[in-house]
């Protein structure tokens, strides 16, 4: 057996995981960075994104591509709006006090989860991908006639998975541009650095916070819509991504968006490769070990300051 084609397969699977994880973790990191809020309900925003994607696609019917595109736009907007409302009605009320926000977001987690269970039920439901061509993974072999291509049996990926990777890269670049090149990004960074002085310079901190919380939740929902054609929507699907996002944010350095993306790629790739060659459980164990080592040797994370 050639090893290399399996490596390629593992990398592609890993990059799909990394793409979804990076989007979700960047949302978590943004909320923590700007607002100093540890959002324990982030996984539920992810789950809601997936469930709403199923709902939108199911209601619309028609061609899978159109239904999916509608879900891709509507689900993150709805989830983002819901998060903004939660920020304005709950988090603002408790003055973003670190301990109380943790308790409040735990409460939010259970409310969202149980309401989903009561309405959507406990079934896992699929959303059809917009397109799904099978792509076999090619490899070379030496024959008498020299080098020739062949397709190892049973090894392949889909066009949709490759599109997820590409789309996530575009979105992450978009967020980077938003944060570093736009007025609204400047306002968010200033608020992150000194909330009071930002306010004394005319920045409406309440609005920035609502927006950041909405944006963070919207990113989680977006990640979920991308993954739901591969994984199915289920009311408990938020748990693992939440844990992995925390791991990624800690490894990357709290509040550092670049570090978060690097860590997501590391965790995603190791997850993909180890799952292909060994088992997914081992992949999770290794991810946890990575956090431990990062925390021992670089307590502020890869790109963390302070």
């Amino acid at each position: 057996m050639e090893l290399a084609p399996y490596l390629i397969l593992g990398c592609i699977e890993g990059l799909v995981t990394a793409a979804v994880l990076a989007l979700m973790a960047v949302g978590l990191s943004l909320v923590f960075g700007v607002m100093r809020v540890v959002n324990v309900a982030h996984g539920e925003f992810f789950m809601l994104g997936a469930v709403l994607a199923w709902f939108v696609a199911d209601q619309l019917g028609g061609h899978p591509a159109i239904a999916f595109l509608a879900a891709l736009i509507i689900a993150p907007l709805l989830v983002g709006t819901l998060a903004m409302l939660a920020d304005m009605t709950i988090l603002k009320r408790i003055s973003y006090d670190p301990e109380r926000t943790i308790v409040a977001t735990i409460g939010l987690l259970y409310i969202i989860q149980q309401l989903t269970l009561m309405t959507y039920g406990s079934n896992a439901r699929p959303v059809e991908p917009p397109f799904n061509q099978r792509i076999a993974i090619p490899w070379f072999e030496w024959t008498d006639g020299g080098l020739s291509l062949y397709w190892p049996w049973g090894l392949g990926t889909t066009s949709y998975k490759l599109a997820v990777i590409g789309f996530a890269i575009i979105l992450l670049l978009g967020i980077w541009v938003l944060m570093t090149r736009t007025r609204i990004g400047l306002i968010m960074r200033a608020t992150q650095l000194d909330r009071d002085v930002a306010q004394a310079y005319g920045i409406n901190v309440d609005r920035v916070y609502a927006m950041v919380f909405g944006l963070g939740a919207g990113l989680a929902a977006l990640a979920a819509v991308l993954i739901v054609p591969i994984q199915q929507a289920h009311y408990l699907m938020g748990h693992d991504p939440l844990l992995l996002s925390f791991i990624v944010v800690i490894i990357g350095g709290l509040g550092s968006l670049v570090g978060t993306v690097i860590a997501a790629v590391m965790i995603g790739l190791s997850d993909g490769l180890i799952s292909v060659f060994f088992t997914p459980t081992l992949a999770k164990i290794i991810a946890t070990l990575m956090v431990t080592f990062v925390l021992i040797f670089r307590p502020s994370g890869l790109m963390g300051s302070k």
Partner: protein
Amino acid sequence: MLEMRSVSSGYDGARVLQEVSLSLSAGEIVCILGRNGAGKTTMMKTIMGLIRADSGQILYHGTDLLDVPPHQIAGLGIGYIPQGRRLFSELTVAENLEIGLMAGGKGNATRDKVLGMFPRLAERLHQRANTLSGGEQQMLATGRALCLEPQMLLLDEPTEGLQPSMIALIRDTVVALKETGVGILLVEQRVDAVLSIADKVMFLENGKSQDIMPASTLRENPDLLKKYIGV
């Protein structure tokens, strides 16, 4: 322009300012003197709405600032230079100024004017604020406030940790602003530096306003300083 009437404020339970009253006119420099912990910074934060006052009124051109949402106070033409400068440390010089411009001012014209006043900032537009020297940081903190073309300026210990030439630059800037009609509320520890430029001096002790007097009275009777702040 500014009139504080019996303003009391503080932090969660601990009352710091007690019924402080003060008035400031356009083109006037009022200096607040007081020992460490007297409540000078608290008074500035209360005017900016960063701490909610418990009672009293802060009238600015007739509007009670206590009824104005904190983020709209800068837009009324009030520039704040906090104690310790509090720049947006990881933002560049240009970005720090940009934040000031968002709150008021006339865009590029204002920016050019401010950079003209502090040419050293113009040479360092893309340098991060936390890599500037102390003097440059104070220039940036001042420039950031001037970017909103303030009618009233709150300066909290602007000369802290600066060498004499920088102190002179700050003083000249303050005097020049006064001459254009800006009202200035100045907190300062260096009594000597203050007496030469201030119009009025207010003594603050344990959060209470003691006497307010013309600076000339103090210049003539240095003994009074002993009585109020023990120097």
